[in-house]
């Protein structure tokens, strides 16, 4: 990034909000992956419930945990590239954030399948999307893109 086109504060806000969301999602995903165990679930659920149903619930929780962690890693990586002024990654990070908000809310409402940490990630994700789509941010990304074209 050249000093002729300094990075505006709003892009910094978006970046750090994405990083906070990424950290929350990774920690939440890893915690859920390590803490939810099939044996513990089988032990707490009534014996009359078939193993297949307990297994399917366990696999749903595990899937949600993996999706949370992967989403966090992807948002962290994409946000880093976005901070450098890459418009394509900005588009991708926004798309990931919108998808992440929908998935987290659905997983919370439908099965209560995510931890509080992951639900909290919704707030920085929304802040980041709003910040990254402000006009001043758009102007900076346009300038950054035209600057790199000219290089």
């Amino acid at each position, binding site marked *: 990034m050249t000093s002729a086109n300094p990075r505006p504060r709003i892009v910094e806000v978006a970046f750090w909000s994405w990083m906070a969301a990424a950290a929350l999602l990774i920690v939440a995903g890893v915690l859920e992956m390590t803490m939810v165990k099939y044996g513990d679930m089988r032990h707490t659920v009534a014996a*009359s419930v078939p193993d297949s*149903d307990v297994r399917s*619930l366990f696999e749903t929780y595990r899937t949600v945990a993996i999706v949370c962690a992967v989403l966090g890693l992807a948002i962290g990586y994409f946000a880093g590239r976005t901070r450098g002024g890459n418009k394509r990654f900005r588009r991708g990070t926004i798309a*990931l954030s919108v998808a992440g908000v929908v998935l987290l809310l*659905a997983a919370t*409402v*439908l099965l209560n*399948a995510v931890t509080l940490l992951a639900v909290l990630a919704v707030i920085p994700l929304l802040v980041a999307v709003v910040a990254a*789509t402000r*006009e001043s941010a758009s102007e900076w990304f346009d300038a950054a893109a035209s600057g790199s074209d000219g290089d």
Partner: protein
Amino acid sequence: MTEAVAPEPLFYEAGATWYWLLAGPISAAAMLYIEVNAGIGARLLPPAFFLVLVSGFLAIQVKAARTHTSVELTHDKLRQGAETIDVCNIVRIFPEPEPGDAPPSWRSARALGELAGVPRGRTGIGLKLAEGRTVQAWARKDEKLRVALTDLLEQRSAENRPPGAAS
């Protein structure tokens, strides 16, 4: 020849509606809207990709919710998620606490089904079982389930009453 017809359930909740899948197209549309309004330039590939991703993940969630948070009450069985108990095992339905009362002890009893506790958006109903255990049934329309269970228990106790006994 007569065909066995499954009895109509006295109470049924599906657990989750497939309408949740509409969140996929809605989030894709939201993404497109953001792209256009933020001057990123509308491209169809990212929204289409995320439409498939979001809808696919939601389908897994909805299917799981329909298995693990559905409720069905028939004359003989109460099913909560994948756990089923015989209605004849229920000996008492605890009354709903009055507003301002201390939380009753049955609120901390095990919730029926395989989820940890009463699922989000549902309200627990305290049940005393024949073997002395207390558990919580649950439903979104908990009042309706409570009425159906109460009617069933009253009907059962009337059937078990010896003929000629005063009501």
